[in-house]
């Protein structure tokens, strides 16, 4: 009788599809699971990522869609959207699901580091070594680019905006920062 446990029954929940609807992605309901998206996906050709399954799981409200690492294997090439016969903004939906995942604490350490870098410098790929300044000069462009790098006030502006939208809290920024501080003190 062990095999007949009720956990074999698919538990359908609506919270994820509700969130999608609220965010303006009601079109997802029109999915007929034709598989065109998966077949268009260059990641699917080399990984276990199955776009159609992500859409299906999201529609059925299956939580694992948010914790599975496959959610992070989409390069957002938009081929699935371009070919979807139902005109479902699949790529945008994957991006939105990533937002939900992050809100529920699913974020990779590498990505957290990127956020930190962005918060500190205003750049996702900042000048973090003098060699880049030297290289710039050698190509006849200003040693420091006219971006946030040349304007400390601009970095503050970006930081202010990050806090405004609550992104610092979403990724448990405070906790992360404190831990680092402690580590530094030690």
């Amino acid at each position, binding site marked *: 009788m062990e095999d007949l446990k009720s956990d074999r029954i698919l538990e359908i929940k609506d919270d994820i599809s509700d969130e999608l609807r609220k965010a303006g992605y009601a079109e997802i309901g029109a999915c*007929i*699971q*034709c598989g*065109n998206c*998966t077949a268009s996906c260059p990641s*699917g050709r080399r990984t276990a990522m199955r776009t159609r399954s992500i859409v299906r799981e999201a529609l059925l409200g299956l939580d694992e869609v948010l914790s599975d690492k496959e959610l992070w294997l989409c390069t957002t090439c938009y081929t699935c959207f371009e*070919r979807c*016969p139902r005109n479902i903004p699949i790529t945008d939906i994957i991006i939105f699901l990533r937002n939900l995942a992050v809100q529920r604490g699913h974020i990779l350490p590498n990505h957290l580091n990127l956020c930190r870098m962005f918060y500190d410098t205003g750049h996702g790929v900042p000048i973090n070594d003098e060699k880049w300044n030297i290289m710039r000069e050698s190509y006849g462009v200003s040693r420091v680019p006219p971006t946030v790098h040349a304007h400390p006030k601009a970095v503050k502006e970006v930081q202010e905006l990050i806090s405004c939208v609550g992104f610092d809290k979403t990724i448990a920024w405070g906790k992360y920062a404190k831990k680092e501080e402690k580590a530094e003190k030690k």
Partner: protein
Amino acid sequence: MKIGLFLCDCGTNIAGVLDIKAIMEHFKTYPEIYVFEDKYLCAELGLNLIADEIKENKIDRVVIAACSFKLHGELFRNSIEKTGINRYLIAFANIREQNSWVHANEPMRATEKAIDQIDMAIERVKLLKPLKRRKAKITPSVLIIGGGIAGIKASLQIADAGYKVYLVEREPTIGGKMALFDKTFPTLDCSICILGPIMVEVKDHPNIELLTYSEVKEVSGYIGNFEITIEKKPRFIFEDKCVGCFEICREVCPIDVEDTFFPRKAIDVSYPQAIPLIPNILEEYCIGCKACEIACGEREAINFSQTKEIKRFKVGAIIVATGYKTFDPTILGEYNYTKYPNIITGLEMERLLNTDGPTKGVILKPSDGSIPKSISFILCVGSRNKKINHEYCSQVCCNYSVKQAILAKKQIKNLDIMIYYTDIRAIGKFCEEFYNRAREEFQIRFIKSNISTIIKSDTSNELLLRGENILDDHLFENPTELVVLAVGIEPAEGTEELAQILNISTDTYGFLLESHLKVRPSDSSVKGIYIAGAIQFPKDIPNSISQAESTASKTIALLTKGEIELDPLVVQYNRDLCDLCRLCENVCVFNAIEIENEQLHIIEANCVGCGACAAMCHKNALTVPGFTKEEIITQLKVITDKKKESPLIVTFLCNWCSYIGADLAGTSKIQYPTNTRPIHVMCTAMIDPALVFEALFNGADGVLIAGCHPQDCHYTTGFIKAENRYESIISMLEELKINNNRVKIISISAGEGQKFADTIKEFSETLKNLGPISKDLKNIK
């Protein structure tokens, strides 16, 4: 005056949203109004109720609050006529299509709107005058446009009944698409063997005049009396001299018109079974060597100086059976249809299978003429695709692909066939069995996968299909030698132009719009014009023929009556009020107004009742009965006196397009705000700017004028006239310092229900931002 108000619950369609009790209580307080309610007014019990109560209470005018008058208006008119009331002393409140169905979530406001609508109808009915119907003779002949299987079957049925039929076909031969197929599903019987004899019958029928290689150029008139102009393209052949020995001229012609699927000579017939069996010379290919003329010899059937001919005639009814074209897969770049010759469409596959086709029925790869070892079918190409506005299922592709797969399997030994599908829809009698046979008997493999792209293999000449087998999450890149794209069905080339010539409506996909999807599927939006076959929506052969026969029966029934009663909606003239300003004379494009010797005459036969002249008449000497300024103003008063909503929109809907478009929003259950009050007019050209200002000055926050697309206008230039008037309205608004966004003009066709709903939504938003009209009116003293 005793007015009977009859309310219909329409089951729960109306009563499920509107508070019918409250509405009844409201109107019971009115003097001289008798209020009744029934579950279904249109059913026998309901109609009896109307008749009985009219007699019982000596009612002399009637208001019906029910579905759109477009649906049952005639029924109610007939039933009051039987009780002795003039059929024009009735007014309708459309509380279903333009109320309960579109305001399902707002019962309170919807009920208030219904009360307004009924009030408008009551005020209007008080002013209506009895009218006499006009009678007209019916011309006992029929125009049938399109010589495919639908047009052919309709022609024969009507001709057999003894009426004259003009069958007009654009191509040099009748037969249509069916003549291009080798076999038909699900019986696999030979297509031309069924069709050929019927085509001959058409040619030989004494009542059928066959006009091939011809197109309809002009149509005017009305049910019973249409005037038709046809243009016949030159074949460069004397049709009466040609004996149809086409091999002789074709043989000597040096010019091959190269086409993989439709090869021919510059002088040639479409196929050996062509009807009429007369070749035509393609002007753009002919080099004028005259070899054919010499070969034809003493028959002297070749005529290089032939020019196009114009032919005019009258008919009583028209059947449009122009059929379909197949979807062009070029716009779906991922299939690389134009890049690789071994990717062909379903119709091209039919040509390869056809014994009279370019390969004599042998399936050969277009790239090198060799026999393929594997064939893959991709279903739903261009169907069920929202991205390209082809949301519909084309109905026939599953079946024809199964047929082609079976025929291919029969022809080529050890052929590997795959059919890639999303859902198999083997619709039709014996079609599911046919599909089962493909699986069981012919071992054709079906893979549930929507192919995402076709690319070419790096290592061989094969094509690769990329897909996901969705039953096991498995990704594949399957090689194949020949790909058949099961392309869907679209309205025939030139449908839009033809619809304009006939003044009939099209749906969002460009198919001809039926008058009512359920109860009048074969009527177009214009009386006396019927639609048959795939031009209404994708259909297989049996369904096309069914509809063709139904339109033929309708036509025969009409012609048999010999006479038709017409609404007396022509302009009326009051000499005493006229100051002979002559403004009306210029605005009428139908030559219905004549001024001679300081006397104005209405030529009733020419008047179409658009009311463009009445709108120009500052003395009210010209009026269209039922649509006089007084009758419209009385409705406006109802709306603005109570002003139950803010912002409040007065919406004028033209009879032919926008009213039907608004009804379509209803039948499609597309929701929009309740704050609009519709007023039915025959044409937007009959709207006098003074009516717009009347609405605004009395408290309407906005006025919407909705009419046909200019090219579809039932009165040729009605909407353009309305647009011109709109410009003067705008400049007057500016002068008065009223925001000019408060008046809006828009084209909404009978097929644009969504657009109507969207327009109301957007206009409401605009008006909300502008605030109430009282703000603007402060500027005016």
